[in-house]
């Protein structure tokens, strides 16, 4: 920031700086949040600080699926009701939240923590791929569902996964990449449309 406020103290500037590092927070929002915190009660400030700290101290990655969890292994991997032979691969822990929200899927997951992005220098060694292959090679799994995003990075990752997993002889499926619910046919792009046709199901 070029302009520092005349009355801003070091403590204020420090918090503004920390807020600005967050995704989607610009200098203006960082300032707004900081001045909001200045007016907040001690209790509220303490609660926020505690919540932030315990996020780091009380969570870990599940040693099996790399989901975020407070127990190892995570609740999904521990649940005997869920089919251990089925593994759905996602990019981010947030994707699991979205899928679990629907409550239809009864298998397990694997979180890659990213996607291969050649132009950003993110390669196969930078996401949790080795762990996935080790898990799949360990036996007991019959099908993997690739649930990476329908973006260039997600597609690169999906095609690379297919190349890696094919020699293991497992069934590989991809989340249907048809028209997103609520879109109109006329606005759909060609890639989406062609895949919607390819992936069509009996009706």
């Amino acid at each position, binding site marked *: 920031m070029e302009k520092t406020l005349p009355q801003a103290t070091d403590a204020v500037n420090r918090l503004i700086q920390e807020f600005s590092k967050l*995704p*989607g927070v610009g200098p203006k929002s960082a300032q707004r949040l900081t001045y909001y915190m200045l007016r907040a009660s001690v209790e509220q400030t303490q609660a926020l600080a505690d919540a932030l700290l315990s996020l780091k101290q009380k969570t870990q990655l599940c040693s099996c699926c790399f989901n975020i969890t407070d127990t190892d292994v995570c609740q999904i991997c521990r649940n005997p009701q869920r089919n251990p032979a089925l593994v759905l691969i996602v990019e981010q822990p947030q994707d699991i939240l979205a899928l679990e929200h629907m409550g239809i899927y009864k298998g397990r997951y694997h979180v890659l923590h990213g996607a*291969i992005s*050649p*132009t*950003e*220098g993110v*390669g*196969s060694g930078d996401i949790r791929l080795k762990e996935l292959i080790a898990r799949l090679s360990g036996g007991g799994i019959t099908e993997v569902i690739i649930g990476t995003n329908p*973006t*260039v990075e997600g*597609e*690169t990752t999906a*095609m*690379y996964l297919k*190349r890696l997993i094919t020699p293991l002889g497992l069934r590989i499926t991809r989340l249907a990449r048809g028209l*997103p*619910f*609520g*879109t*109109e046919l006329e*606005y*759909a*792009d*060609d*890639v*989406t449309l*062609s895949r919607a046709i390819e992936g069509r199901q009996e009706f």
Partner: protein
Amino acid sequence: MTKPRTYQTPAIVIKKTKLGEADRILTFYTPELGKIQGVAKAVRKPKSKLSGHLEMLSYSLVTLARGKNIDTVIGSQTLKPFLAIKNDLDLLSCALYITEMVNQFTPPETEDPQIFNLLAFTLEQLPEAADRELLLRYFELHLLRQAGYRPELEKCVMCRKTLETVTNSFAPSAGGMLCPSCQRLGRHYGYLLSPDGLGVMRFIQGGDWESISVVPVDCSTIAEIERLIRSYIRHLLEKEIKSALWLDSLKLESSQSGKV
């Protein structure tokens, strides 16, 4: 000069950066405006009507509205979907390399229709090319020329004498070839280049794809040229092209699994 509030242009997306919750900043290469940027709002949400038209490598007709700091994408329609590229890992990886190269070698908002044509042409040819590596070398040498970094391949860059049919050297820091006696002076680091390799490099640099693509070139010669061009690019940019490293790792893995 007053600019119109909104404008429309064919454009190929060569870079995207996340912005905030669901927006993206897109870098386009266009025929008449060169490299431009625009913000696409809410494009990461599945319900966005723009998203499919504004992914990396999209070749679309985009409409932008002028903004104070950055223009906003308000419409987009796919002109060429490049489906064959997007459904193949190797093709997609090559295409990303091509876009990264264009982004690295072009200044913002400088018109260069030839670079646009080269970009669009290379992407179109990619699935069809019998020799994909040869096409990539063609793209690299022609992009370098257009960007003002045409390597000197006819004469020695130091003594200006025409090169003889012997093993000369390619010196990235000198911007071209060195004859054996100038190379011996040791002022530039040079890579030995066989007369065959030099001949092919000149042929690619001087010709159009129609005539180059029909000539079979030994893959070890192409690999030799690739190494030189790569070191020249590294010298010019003072860094690696990131997607080139990914292409390397794919090539290495497929050679290890016995696939060519």
